[in-house]
């Protein structure tokens, strides 16, 4: 008994203190995947805020955006032109979704819209496989002038390795999130988006166009998906398996709150760092592999205490 308590409560911290450079390395890895989780979660939050729809298709949008980029490049389009074309593809997707999926379903219960996004997921999987085939592809990291080297940082008698692509991912994610935050805080369209999020009927009655707002948030979510796709793709491959990773956004959202942009970021970091540390320092006790489910476990525990998430709007029902 005492030995188990020692393994859980004391030994991991001893290990952290003994090899501080390794601990920093784990933290950094966790931070980077946390940032990427946050990016995916951000895509969900944008759409959920504006329309109350949980967009199941966000994961496949990440894959679809990355596949289009690589696919276009392989077809001979220069890298940056392909990137620009991908932005246009995401715009087309947003307009198409708004016109063909959301508009006919306006005023339907949220669950109907949710199911429509599941349908959209399978449609995009099929379309993606039809156009680009099912094999994993390699992200065109260098062609997009993203750095591929690494820095080594000598610290406390050891080394911490920073992959430059990870640094770039963190920087791009932070820039993207800041830009979106400023946009939604300070512009007319941002204000309209928050208005729509608060009350559809009232927004319509002051002449805010739901259709326009929906198209804009789906476009924004598409851009976020493209950025996520490039970054994830650069760390692994571009394949349909990526959309499973996107499901990691679920515990992030439970943690951060479905309606909060800062919540998505903080939630993403907690999950990213938490699961790396958990895996390395506690996972070995039960044979490893806890990275796969630890995030869901944290989220579940969190749900019991604070169902609205860290930053979500408190759910108050008048009776």
């Amino acid at each position, binding site marked *: 008994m005492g030995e188990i308590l020692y393994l859980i409560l004391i030994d991991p911290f001893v290990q952290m203190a003994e090899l501080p450079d390794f601990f920093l390395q784990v933290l950094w890895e966790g931070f980077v995947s946390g940032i990427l989780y946050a990016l995916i979660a951000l895509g969900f939050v944008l759409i959920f805020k504006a329309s109350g729809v949980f967009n199941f298709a966000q994961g496949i949008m990440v894959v679809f955006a990355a596949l289009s980029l690589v696919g276009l490049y392989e077809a001979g389009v220069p890298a940056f032109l392909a990137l620009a074309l991908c932005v246009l593809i995401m715009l087309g997707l947003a307009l198409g979704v708004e016109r063909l999926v959301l508009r006919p379903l306006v005023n339907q219960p949220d669950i109907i819209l949710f199911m429509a996004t599941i349908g959209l997921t399978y449609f995009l999987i099929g379309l993606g496989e039809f156009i680009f085939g099912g094999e994993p592809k390699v992200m065109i990291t260098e062609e997009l002038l993203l750095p591929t080297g690494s820095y080594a940082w000598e610290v406390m008698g050891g080394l911490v390795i920073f992959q430059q692509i990870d640094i770039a991912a963190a920087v791009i994610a932070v820039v993207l999130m800041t830009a979106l935050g*400023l*946009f939604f805080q*300070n*512009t*007319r*369209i*941002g*204000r*309209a988006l*928050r*208005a729509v*999020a*608060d*009350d559809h*009927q*009232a*927004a*319509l*009655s*002051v*002449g*805010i*166009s*739901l259709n326009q707002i929906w198209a*804009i948030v789906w476009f924004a979510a598409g851009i976020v998906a493209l950025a996520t796709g490039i970054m994830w793709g650069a760390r692994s491959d571009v394949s349909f398996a990526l959309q499973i990773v996107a499901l990691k956004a679920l515990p992030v959202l439970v943690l951060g709150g479905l309606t909060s942009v800062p919540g998505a970021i903080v939630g993403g970091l907690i999950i990213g760092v938490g699961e790396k540390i958990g895996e390395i320092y506690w996972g070995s006790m039960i044979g490893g592999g806890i990275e796969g489910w630890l995030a869901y476990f944290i989220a579940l525990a969190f749900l019991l205490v604070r169902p609205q998430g860290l930053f979500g*709007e408190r759910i108050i029902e008048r009776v």
Partner: protein
Amino acid sequence: MGLMTLERPGGKRRRHLDEVLLALEGVSLRFGGVNALSDISFDIRKGEIRAIIGPNGAGKSSMLNVINGFYQPQEGTIRWKGRERRRMNPYLAASTGIGRTFQNIALFKGMSTLDNVMSGRALKMRRGLFWQLVWIGPARREEIEHRRRVEEIIDFLEIEHIRRTPVGKLPYGLQKRVELARALAMEPELLLLDEPMAGMNLEEKEDMARFILEVNEQFGTTIALIEHDIGVVMDLSDRIVVLDYGRMIADGTPQKVRREQAVIDAYLGVAH
């Protein structure tokens, strides 16, 4: 009936209320087998304060929702600014100059008073997504220009002190006022007020009545309001439509409506 005594500034006005802004003819609205409105005909003239009154369940809110485009009547025609309206929805209604408030207050609760009122300018601000993204330059100038107009409205309704407060935290009476400010920011030609004084105490009611009159006088906004407090309406409106069980039982000046036997019966409850 004299719940309060309101003197119109400048005494009783005699204006030319000839130009018809909105005309309804033979409007009927059904929900399944329920007749919410049957064969309603009346008009709203430019510059007047028009009240729609009636006991609970008379169809007042349905009437407002028809004008606002939220409901489509099965029968009847609606002419807005002289042209017959076909398919309607709240967005189209707003973009052709109809603003409204809601009975249960539909503000954007998480946003400040200022942002709520600014959102009323949605239709007036035309810089597109591109300039919004660039942010500085034209979109910024436009924002400032509209901000000036919005500040005027905020001053006018005496809500300067709560400009930065999230409206969800405000007391009920002030929320109603913010909602009026948001509707005014649209600079509507026709302003629909759904029970603007419901749930208010006497003092708040007097303030609201004063604001409604001043809006009408100073901005020349045509106002159609619903109330079931008959006293307020008698002092406030130029002409009154009385509904009961979805039918129109009277239409005319307060003096005329007050004397109609059908109106007295409806309010005092006579067996139908």
